């Protein structure tokens, strides 16, 4: 809402400096988003044209003598509308004006025009920056004060206010005046409204019927006949422009002006075009058509409220009028509508039609049904005055929705409970009264408060408490810390696990990323088989790239890898801990916490120390081994099925017999699908929900062994196909074996074909005694015997 300070001053005295006023408004909830100045004219004053003579050397130019009260100047003027006695804006030499051609500010210099010296200039609106008009000079009202600087007379300051949706009353100058008055200790003046009704009684000329009273609590109408259509006077046009509205004519402008003044939208119908001179407020018929003022032909439904005449809809109630009953140059009589409509139905209508207007924006927020009559009288007065029309006797006022205001009880205890401060009744009354609330003392601790009709947002005692707090100023209220007891502690183990996982992986040199939860079906298809792909869809996506809720973290990571590959030279190691969204029948989806990571590029970034080899499967596996070691979770890797991963290099991660995730080399086909150029990309994905129980298991300390370790190395030859883990598991199963390390794997000429050599270091140790050589030797023989029996392993020669 743009508010002219000059206009505001008509209803409230403003003595505070502008910045302080803006500060107070902002702090109390009416945020001043900007302050604009209209004018800033220097050396331009109000003058009167007292003599006009022809220019001796130019037919189309004239010499105008302008009286400024104490001085007279003669200037050369080419405007076709120059007339004797006009009040004009006269720019003296040295003033700054806008060049109508270039739009730039230029300084007015003394000049000779066709041989005659011009001592100044009579300005057009464009030259002053008021509007685009440049067909002639700007003519000021005849009561414009002679010799007064134009800045004083026409200049204004515009407050650009952000009005919150609960305050439709502040979408009006009078509403803002109430705020200013309360904040500065002043009182509000209302416009004086009185006029003569010289026409016939309105009941004889028009009728109004509300068919659907649930959607129209009140409908008021007046009639002005014998109007003369014309542009509005400059003062009104300027105010409309200042508040961001385009002047149209003296009828439409009045409806807009009063809407800005009171916050009540009005509509002017061309009375002659209303069939049977009837107004019927009713729901539209399904399929009923109406061409609205914006020129769009619209199909209506029975959920929408329309204003109809004897034949059909002429306006969508509270949203926009129709072209057929529009006021035009030929209009001679105007029926003015000032009504109240149900905000919910109106908003639904305007959303359904995708049609929002200044009127609908006010109605949908719920404005007072007390306003229509006040605003209508004001509009009737202005319209008659501006158009020279005759006002029909009386006003039609149908008010089925009238309710009596219910007083609200407010106690000092309530104020204390919410604000944490003791305020006396006097102070409460003072603040509330300044905003127009009527307060009655019920007891020394209690008030009974009647809410002023325009404050439709105030309903509860809590609302009154806010009124008091915001006018006093939140910064004036005390500041404390909550003193009560703390709630019972509820652990959040999943969050704790996620945090640990993130820290460990970052410690392993991996960068955390966060990718979008919304993705496209096409992208997910690249990593999820169609038979398993049933993601939730957004009904109103912005783009197809963000249309479905992800059911896997893989695509986001692979996209991040792909885009980073284009500029990264070294390795890329990314991980994400995030949710996937798995649909459930008739319920919200399951939001499952997952972990996924990708690694690619060289093991060590290139430097003067040399260049590392490419990362491989075992780098990724090493990261996971560190992760699970730190989490205290025992895992094993087993061959896996996973279409995204290369069949020769993939493993599932098993915890306590249950699969919790998968690790492997990205299938070259998938890499190509994601436009990934690296040949070796390793990916893992782990279901944190499945991991959680194991991660929560309590940890126990093991004493440091007191007896020495005996080391023995053995090299075994086994079939290539036997997993090293099977060999290691057998060795580790022996009671005296404390630890086994695989330190060499060899396949080649030194061993037979289809065989491989595995070299282990075995740590023999007993928790109770020092082992003898004999004991170790015997254990080693038993191990070899068993490996031979079960796996056909032999000692390497």
């Amino acid at each position, binding site marked *: 809402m743009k508010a002219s300070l000059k206009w505001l001053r008509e209803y409230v005295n403003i003595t505070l400096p502008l910045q302080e006023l803006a500060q107070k408004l*902002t702090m109390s*909830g009416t*945020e001043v*988003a900007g302050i604009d100045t209209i004018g800033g004219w220097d050396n331009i004053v109000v003058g009167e044209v007292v003599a006009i003579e022809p220019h001796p050397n130019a037919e189309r130019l004239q010499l105008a003598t302008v009286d400024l009260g104490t001085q007279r100047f003669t200037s050369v003027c080419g405007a076709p509308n120059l007339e004797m006695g006009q009040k004009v804006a006269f720019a003296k030499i040295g003033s700054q004006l806008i060049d109508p051609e270039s739009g730039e500010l230029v300084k007015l210099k003394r000049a000779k025009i066709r041989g005659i010296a011009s001592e100044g200039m009579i300005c057009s609106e464009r030259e002053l920056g008021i509007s685009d008009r440049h067909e002639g000079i700007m003519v000021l009202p005849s009561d414009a004060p002679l010799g007064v600087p134009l800045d004083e007379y026409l200049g204004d300051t515009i407050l650009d206010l952000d009005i*919150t*949706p609960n305050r439709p009353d502040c979408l009006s100058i009078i509403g803002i005046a109430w705020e200013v008055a309360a904040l500065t200790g002043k009182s509000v003046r209302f416009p004086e409204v009185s006029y003569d009704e010289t026409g016939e009684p309105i009941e004889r000329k028009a009728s109004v019927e509300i068919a659907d009273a649930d959607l129209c609590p009140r409908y008021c109408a007046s009639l002005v006949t014998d109007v003369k259509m014309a542009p509005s006077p400059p003062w009104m046009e300027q105010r409309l422009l200042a508040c961001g509205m385009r002047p149209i004519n003296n009828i439409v402008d009045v409806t807009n002006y009063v809407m800005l003044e009171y916050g009540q939208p009005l509509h002017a119908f061309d009375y002659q075009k209303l069939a049977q001179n009837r107004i019927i407020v009713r729901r539209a018929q399904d399929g009923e058509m109406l061409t609205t003022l914006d020129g769009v032909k619209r199909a209506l439904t029975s959920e929408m409220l329309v204003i109809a005449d004897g034949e059909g809809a002429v306006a969508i109630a509270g949203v926009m009028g129709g072209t057929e009953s529009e006021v035009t140059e030929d209009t001679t009589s105007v029926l003015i509508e000032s009504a109240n409509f149900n905000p*919910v139905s109106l*908003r639904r209508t305007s959303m359904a039609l995708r049609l929002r207007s200044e009127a609908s924006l006010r109605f949908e927020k719920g404005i007072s049904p007390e306003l229509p009559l006040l605003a209508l009288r004001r509009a009737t007065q202005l319209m008659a005055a501006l158009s020279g029309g005759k006002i029909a006797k009386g006003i039609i006022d149908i008010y089925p929705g009238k309710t009596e205001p219910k007083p609200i009880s407010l106690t000092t205890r309530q104020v*204390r*409970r*919410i*604000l*944490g*401060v003791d305020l006396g009744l006097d102070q409460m009354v003072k603040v509330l009264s300044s905003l127009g609330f009527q307060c009655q003392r019920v007891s020394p601790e209690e008030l009974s408060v009647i809410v002023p009709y325009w404050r439709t947002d105030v309903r*509860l005692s*809590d609302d009154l408490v*806010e009124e008091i*707090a*915001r006018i006093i100023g*939140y*910064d004036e*209220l*005390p500041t*404390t*810390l*909550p*003193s009560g007891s*703390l*709630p019972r502690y*509820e652990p*959040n183990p999943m*969050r704790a696990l996620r945090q640990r996982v*993130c*820290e460990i*992986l*970052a*410690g392993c*040199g991996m*960068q*955390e990323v*966060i*990718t979008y939860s*919304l993705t496209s079906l096409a992208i997910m298809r690249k990593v999820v088989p169609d038979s398993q792909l049933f993601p*939730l869809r*957004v*009904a*109103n996506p*912005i783009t197809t790239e963000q249309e479905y809720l992800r059911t896997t973290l893989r695509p986001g990571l692979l996209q991040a890898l792909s885009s980073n590959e284009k500029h990264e030279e*070294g390795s*890329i*190691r990314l991980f994400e801990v995030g*949710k996937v*969204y798995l649909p459930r029948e008739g319920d*919200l*989806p399951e*939001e499952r916490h997952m972990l996924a990571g990708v690694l690619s590029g060289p093991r060590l*970034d290139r*430097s*003067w*120390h040399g260049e590392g080899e490419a990362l491989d499967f075992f780098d990724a596996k090493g990261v996971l081994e560190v992760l699970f070691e730190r989490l205290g979770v025992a895992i094993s890797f087993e061959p896996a099925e996973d279409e995204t991963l290369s069949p020769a290099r993939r493993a599932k991660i098993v915890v306590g017999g249950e699969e919790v995730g998968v690790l492997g080399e990205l299938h070259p086909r998938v890499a190509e699908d994601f436009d990934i150029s690296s040949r070796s990309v390793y990916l893992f994905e782990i279901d944190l929900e499945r991991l959680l129980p194991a991660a929560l298991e309590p940890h126990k300390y093991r004493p440091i062994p007191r007896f020495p370790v005996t080391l023995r190395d053995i090299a075994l030859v086994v079939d290539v196909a036997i997993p090293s883990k099977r060999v290691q598991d057998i060795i580790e199963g022996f009671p005296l074996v404390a630890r086994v390390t695989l330190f060499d794997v060899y396949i080649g000429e030194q061993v037979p074909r289809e065989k491989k050599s595995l070299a282990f270091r075995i740590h023999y140790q007993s928790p109770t005694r020092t082992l003898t050589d004999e004991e170790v030797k015997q254990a080693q023989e038993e191990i070899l015997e068993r490996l031979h029996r079960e796996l056909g392993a032999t000692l390497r020669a």
Partner: protein
Amino acid sequence: MLEKLDEIRSNAIDELSNLQSLNELEDWRIRYLGKKSTLTQILRGLAALPLEQRKAVGASANEVKALLEAALGQKRAALKEEELARSIERGRIDVTLPGRPLALGRLHPTTQMVREICDIFISMGFQVIEGPEVEWDYYNFEALNIPPDHPARDMFSTFWIDTESGERPMLLRTHTSPMQIRVMERTRPPVRVVVPGKVYRYEATDATHESMFYQIEGLAVDENITLADLKGTLYEFAKRLFGAERRVRFRCDYFPFVEPGVEMAIDCFVCGGSGCRLCGNTGWIEILGAGMVHPDVLRRVNYDPDVYTGFAFGLGVERIPMLRYGIEDIRLFYSNDLRFLRQF
């Protein structure tokens, strides 16, 4: 004999001063102090001398021996020191050469910010809880005093989920506030929680708008919670997050689920309050929205508003690193360019 000893001494000392290495020193020792050295032989031959001479020569010979041994010790130490210095010098390196690269991991800036903020509230007795991102209309709107067709719905452009029945509207939560309802539904006061999480807005993205971002919700409900407590808690938070020298301002604002409604701002740390581009010439930077929990919201979760009061707040997470580091485009956060992520 005594002259002989004098000669040995002066020769030995002269030679010693010219020695360069421990090997030469060893030769010197053998020559002057070894078993076959003249000095040793003199000492051995003392017994054969007449008593008078034996005494004088003996004293002098022992004196020379002690002197040479002391000189030997000193020289040995000096040579060792030189040797060490030489060997150290041989190992001199260019310390300006870069170190061996390690793979460096980091947490996402949003994760870091969420933790920093949550930690502040944890230290004030708040617990961290989380909730669903896909929500019912009821929790996101209706229970928060925003029924269908309420004009405040304009404040929250919403992604709706395509459900087959379409009976119960499902959406991507537009704020973390639905968790106010969920928390109060399942616990009784006292409540003191913060709720971090992703939220979604149906909005075309630009430098200051993202369709997905993070919020942190806060809620405290108890018997004696007041607006003064709201101010105190958020004041403390702002000072800890932005520094003790920042000024904090509370002004009236509107959110349908609180009454009174509050907006907290800090003075602009670029211009210090005089007005600049960052703060839109207001001198203040909005940080969060807050307010006292609306009595209708309390009633809806069966909390008696005559017994309990509470405050709630919600803040956008990315905005804070944006302000702190001068990041001008919010879209950088989730496009995951390593050149961006590596800076935090």
